[in-house]
């Protein structure tokens, strides 16, 4: 296995910076690089400034924050659940958030804020339901963390069913809008949305980094963790909740974007990182780079038609699973 080189940090940061700059400079309206930089500073053509500052910049920032949140969440979950296939969306967060949003739609909510809050509430609600299901159906000792994973999958499946029911009698364009949201998109990025997401990611991310070493211990197994003085059930639920908060925040801001939380921690581990504090930071950087790049692809590959961001990231899953299969063989 590779040993981690400190120089890799520079590589990760540089990749994110370069991809972000390219994403700001590229778009439907051709703006030369120099003019794009000027526009960032507020100099030059009014329209170019508006495009760069009000459209592309918040979009890039939103994508980066979403990727960072998903990467961190996935890394924390894989470590604490001791499952290399754990992903924030497997845990019912996405389903719950989608149900929250759909309920808000059908109750007539019009504003972004309300729907965002409803998605957030739905995501967290699903997590609590999963925790409850795990406790009820768990093995004799305590709510097993792996039971949590299964409970989350069940909650997610139920949520999908609820969404289908809600959409069955909805008007066609509501269905199209809901499908669009469920495929994930950074297209509706606004500065307020970016601010909310930034605050959520910063808060939950800081909490995760604070408790990161506990994840190292949890990853050893529940009995070993107990021997080292860590109550696996409590600590595990704490990490689970924080990771779910991160994921729910990204869902509320950009819809459902899959595979990032699954793939990115593996890339970070492949670089040689094991201890979860640096692993989570690296996963955030890699996730941010990945989503910004995917969003760039989403809006340039089939221009002028916009592809859903979640579709591009889902395509990541195929080579990832091929690699995993080869490793397991």
């Amino acid at each position, binding site marked *: 296995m590779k040993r981690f080189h400190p120089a890799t940090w520079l590589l990760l940061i540089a990749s994110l910076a370069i991809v972000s700059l390219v994403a700001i400079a590229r*778009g*439907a*309206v051709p703006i030369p690089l120099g003019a794009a930089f000027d526009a960032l500073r507020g100099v030059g053509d009014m*329209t170019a400034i*508006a*495009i760069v500052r*009000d*459209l*592309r910049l918040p979009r890039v920032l939103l994508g980066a924050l979403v990727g960072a949140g998903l990467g961190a969440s996935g890394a924390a979950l894989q470590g604490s659940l001791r499952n290399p296939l754990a992903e924030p969306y497997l845990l019912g967060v996405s389903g719950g958030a989608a149900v929250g949003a759909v309920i808000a*739609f059908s109750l*007539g*909510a*019009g*504003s*972004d804020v309300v*729907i965002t809050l409803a998605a957030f509430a739905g995501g967290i609600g699903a997590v609590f339901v999963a925790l409850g299901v795990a406790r009820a159906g768990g093995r004799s000792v305590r709510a097993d963390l792996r039971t949590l994973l299964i409970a989350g999958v069940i909650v997610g499946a139920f949520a999908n069913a609820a969404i289908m029911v809600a959409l069955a*009698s909805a*008007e*066609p*364009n*509501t*269905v*199209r*809008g809901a499908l*669009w*949201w469920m495929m994930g*998109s950074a*297209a*509706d990025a*606004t500065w307020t949305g970016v601010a909310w997401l930034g605050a959520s990611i910063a808060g939950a991310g800081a909490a995760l980094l604070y408790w990161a070493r506990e994840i190292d211990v949890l990853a050893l197994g529940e009995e070993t963790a107990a021997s080292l003085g860590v109550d696996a059930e409590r600590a595990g639920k704490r990490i689970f909740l924080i990771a779910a908060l991160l994921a729910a925040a990204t869902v509320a801001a950009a*819809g459902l974007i899959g595979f990032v939380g699954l793939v990115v921690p593996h890339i970070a581990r492949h670089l040689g990182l094991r201890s979860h504090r640096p692993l989570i930071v690296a996963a955030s950087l890699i996730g941010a780079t990945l989503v910004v790049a995917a969003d760039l692809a989403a*809006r340039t590959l089939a*221009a*002028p*038609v*916009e592809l859903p961001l979640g579709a591009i990231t889902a395509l990541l899953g195929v080579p990832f699973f091929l690699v995993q299969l080869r490793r397991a063989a």
Partner: protein
Amino acid sequence: MSVLRSRTLRVLVSVIAVGAACTAKSEDGDGVERKTPMAEKSQLPATDDFGDSLRTGLKPLRIVSLNPATTEILFALGAGNRLIGRTKYDLWPDSARLIPALGDGIRPNVEAVLGTKPDLVVLYASEDNRAAAGRLRAAGVSTVSLKIDSIAEFRRGVHMLGAVLGDQARARSVVDSVNRTLARVRAATAGLSKPTVFWHVWDAPLITIGAGSFMNELVEIAGGRNVYADLPAPSPAVSLEDVSKRNPDFILAGPIGAAQLAADPRWRIVAASRAGRVLTVDTLLVARPSVRLGEAALSLAKLLHPGAIR
């Protein structure tokens, strides 16, 4: 993501989405003014758009129409008093609202339809409805399934429904009336310069009209040019930045869409939005390819060329 709650907008976008369900090609034969109507029975297709045989001269007394366009056509053909079922989007003419609504016209509840004891059901010919058409026929009810997404298909639909009702003369006069108005609008705008237009249908995703939609035809007839006429799909999703690049002279939107544009600072990047060149359309009028196509074209023409149309 904001979701629009206007009923008229829902009507508009439902019809567009219904049109998006098929790969409607715009069979635009409107370049030539039709003086010779399609009158002969032998020119009528022998089957409807599902391939089921077309039974003519039925004189049905209890008709269910599961498509806003055909409901309007049936009213125009004088069969409105024989309608016993419609979709929830069928709101014109006013008397249509008195007819019981039986869902949204896609995947209808066959039991509910049969419960009204119809002798004719008119369906929109999308694949979603094929099964329902089959079940209705198996239960002994005549069905006519029509795909009406373009102006040419509208004309054809009128003739076919007229034949089914046994009143082709009336059908001819409906088609002629629409043709006359369309021709008048076309003539009136013929010599005028054609402004470019972006039609805002939905905000998230940002949906507009492409070449596959009859609304594209309406824009042409009204003396405008759709900036997305190069996209074949009826209702493609595009990016705001691309709209800015194509720089339309005008933006067409329903009342709620227009309000959203005004409130969203990102639309500043589109010159037409900045300059306030946003034209509000009556979505109930322009949203369906039916008997009011002429008035629809006229209303658009008046918006695009104020003062130049009588």
